[in-house]
């Protein structure tokens, strides 16, 4: 089973990378870019468990490791 965990910065947390990319896109002349925030995705192959268990396991993974709950939010999707 394929799953994706997406981790993004909480609103209000400064994102120097996003800012830098925003600046770079603007100077490349990419039209209409107002702001950029960068996050991460984890594409995870899950095996030997049912959907409910998988969702539970991935939520645990996100909270325990993949996201830093002080500054980040996460979202788990089973595909």
């Amino acid at each position, binding site marked *: 089973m394929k799953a994706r965990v997406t981790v993004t910065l909480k609103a209000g*947390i*400064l994102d*120097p990378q996003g800012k830098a990319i925003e600046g770079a896109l603007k100077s490349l002349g990419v039209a209409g870019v107002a702001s950029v925030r960068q996050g991460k995705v984890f594409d995870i192959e899950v095996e030997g468990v049912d959907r409910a268990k998988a969702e539970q396991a991935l939520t645990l993974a996100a909270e325990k490791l993949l996201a*830093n709950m*002080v*500054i980040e939010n996460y979202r788990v999707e089973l595909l």
Partner: protein
Amino acid sequence: MKSAVVVFPGINRERDMARALKFVSGKEPAMVWHADSELPKGTDLVVLPGGFSYGDYLRCGAIAARAPIMEAVRTHAAKGGLVLAVCNGFQIACEAGLLPGVLMRNARLKFICKEVFLRIERSDTPFTRQYNAGAVIRVPVAHGEGNYVADADTIARIEDEGRVLFRYTAPDGKLDPAFNFNGATNAIAGILSEKRNVLGLMPHPENHVDPAVGPTDGRRLFESLVSTLEAA
């Protein structure tokens, strides 16, 4: 002084740290493997050294913070034991919840290795008693993610409680954005835990102790620890 340096896979400044501890205290520290669950008996000081634990491939320090040994480090800290967390160690301490906040990419997004100026905010701590408050020292940094960030409440709290121990400043000790090279909030370079027994800092005092190699401004941090523990 009985010190223990924790070795995580990918850590790489553990030798520098061990050498500095030996140089100043005369005693070899114990090197403790991340997969162990206990610290050597009688450990006074735990050091989380610099490097790239697990390649820093997720967030800096995130994977190391979940290593088995960290439970023992937490217990040591909870009992008031001293913890010195440098660079990657600082990142690990934040991820492990020993210190508040997080270290983000440097404002200019580049790894930077150079000497910086640090103002010592207070000398009434186990880590700085051999310095004068307000003194400016020169020590190297070497990191890509040292930009200290925390939410406004946390920043206000650690400032109010006087827990910011080091700040990046100009050589004369004045705050100056040009010298806050990584963009840290309030130019914060190092902070203390609530009980003031855990210090996390980005710069490397351990690289400035030996006159044969260069300046020695970092030496008094280790001398402070030695004298604190001797006094205890």
